[in-house]
């Protein structure tokens, strides 16, 4: 016997959560794109999507975020800080790859210095993930050591019922358990079978890839130029990646008052690393693509013992020139063998 949440009860769940002062967010398709937005009613959710176009990370790390306001007086510099409130949020219907990505980003944002902007939002959010029963041509979680029903990063995991009218509920963390309390009355005991999870084919041998990448000999391999020759240097892959976390700090306003902001930035951009002197350590697009791959599969794991890729496949799915982590790792996997 296990707890079951029926789809019919979802809207009622949302009201119960809201009564507790929690906001409810979930995958929505709106205005020709899909991402996570606040919902009142279960019908607003788009739970049939294999994956939203935009990732979960923008809930914790918005693409532009005011950090401070400043106003410069004769005697004093006044600063106000924008920090997220601690109102709890229920994020309903994340995918396992996105949820895992958040756990990976936690490592970085907590590396010796704790980023309050990220963690205030993380701490107040409960991620309720739905295991995938479908995948598309670009999904590759299994190649990254995850699965369509991975628990990493989630507080509650829901497994779709074979009947299609609800989910089996698995509580994963105390935070998840707490979030389930207000809706306890709507969780029914049952033994209905879960639908089989999506079958995501193994596309490459990750270990072979990381071994190849770890070899300093390969850093200047001709491979990098060949694999990235068509890269146009836009930031799509990085902006739609659940684990890419690079940012810029920019002031908007004048010398009297304004706002200091944290904006997404991308290692694909030529100006990202350019020194004022004009020297650019990563001067070519292939160097920048190499940085992205190396960062995900070598540098990040060097620091935090985990690769910063969850196999969501968005980089390939959305690339204007059909590149992505998948092609690169498939090619490396072959090279290593």
């Amino acid at each position: 016997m296990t707890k079951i949440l029926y789809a019919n009860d979802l809207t009622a769940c949302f009201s119960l959560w809201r009564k507790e002062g929690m906001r409810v967010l979930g995958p929505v398709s709106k205005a020709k794109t899909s991402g996570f937005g606040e919902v009142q009613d279960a019908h607003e959710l788009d739970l049939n999507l294999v994956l939203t176009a935009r990732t979960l990370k923008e809930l914790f790390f918005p693409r532009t975020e005011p950090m401070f306001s400043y106003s410069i007086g004769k005697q004093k510099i006044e600063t106000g800080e924008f920090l997220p409130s601690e109102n709890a949020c229920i994020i309903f219907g994340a995918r396992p790859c996105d949820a895992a990505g958040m756990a990976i980003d936690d490592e970085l944002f907590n590396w010796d210095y704790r980023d309050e902007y990220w963690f205030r939002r993380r701490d107040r959010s409960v991620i309720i993930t739905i295991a995938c029963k479908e995948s598309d041509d670009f999904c590759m979680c299994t190649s990254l050591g995850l699965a369509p029903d991975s628990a990493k990063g989630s507080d509650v995991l829901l497994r779709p019922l074979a009947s299609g009218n609800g989910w089996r509920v698995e509580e994963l963390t105390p935070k998840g358990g707490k979030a389930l309390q207000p809706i306890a009355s709507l969780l029914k005991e049952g033994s209905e079978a879960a639908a089989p999870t999506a079958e995501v084919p193994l596309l490459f041998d990750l270990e072979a890839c990381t071994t190849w990448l770890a070899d300093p000999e390969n850093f200047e391999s001709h491979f990098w130029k060949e694999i990235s020759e068509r890269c146009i240097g836009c930031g799509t892959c990085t902006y739609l990646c659940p684990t890419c976390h690079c940012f810029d700090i920019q002031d908007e306003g004048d010398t009297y008052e304004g706002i200091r902001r944290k904006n997404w930035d991308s290692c694909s951009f030529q100006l990202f690393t350019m020194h004022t002197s004009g020297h650019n350590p990563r001067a070519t697009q292939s160097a920048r693509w190499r940085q992205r791959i190396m960062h995900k599969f070598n540098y990040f794991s060097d620091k935090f013992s985990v690769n910063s890729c969850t196999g969501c496949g968005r980089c390939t799915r959305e690339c204007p020139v059909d590149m992505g982590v998948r092609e690169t790792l498939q090619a490396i996997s072959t090279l290593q063998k």
Partner: protein
Amino acid sequence: MSIQEQYRSRAKELLREGTVKMVIGYGAGTTPLRRRPIFITSPDDADRLVLDAACRTNLAGYLLREGLLADQKSVAVFLTPDGVRTINILAAESQLATEQVIVLGFQIDGENARQLEGTRVADFSGIIAERKKKRKEQPSHEVARKLEQMTSVERFSFWEGEFSRCIKCYACRAACPMCWCRRCVVDNNQPQWVNTSSHTLGNLEWNLVRAFHLAGRCVECGNCSEACPVNIPLHLLNRRMTEEVLTAFDYYPGADEHQEPVLASFRKDDPETFIL
């Protein structure tokens, strides 16, 4: 022989006899429906080339890759008539020399790719003149017509909604063969004219500046809209600009490589109905 076969053997020939050092074309992509730009330098690889109705990307921008044309050698590239116009504009803007470009011309008609006669960009001037005539007769886009009928408040709201999605990944800029500036105006910070943040205000500013900088230069290839990961209808802005320069100045970008850029030239009798 299918057009794909014809062009494969043409590419082989060009590479074998050393007429070109590279062929820029389309290859198979990650999924059966996808095509990707490929760069062929050896005749043996020419069989990787694919040409069919799924080949939509304007490849002309790749010619501006740093150093590619620096050695004065030629490059062949698969181009639609709009792609050829791109080359003309780039030449007019002194970004490349047309002598270094061999055109593998094609056109998509419905489900098929059709071969276009010609080797050099100048060979396509007839086709381009035809297109200009057709473009003049072409009604404006359905959505654009709806927009024209709205009040300005409604129009502003429409674009506010579209631009609010922009994540400032600059894929539109990177995908555009016309955006060749080494340092884009948004990346200049002394002064910072356009907000770099992707709040709606910054997005509006960026998209207006982008569309304006393409006025009279855009060939309507669709690379920008295709690249946009949040599906902003960028082509509507570009088309509006194209129509404006066409009606106001009878200007069709990329007619030939000697055409003066529309915003860098003038006629004393240019219309000025809106000036008080």
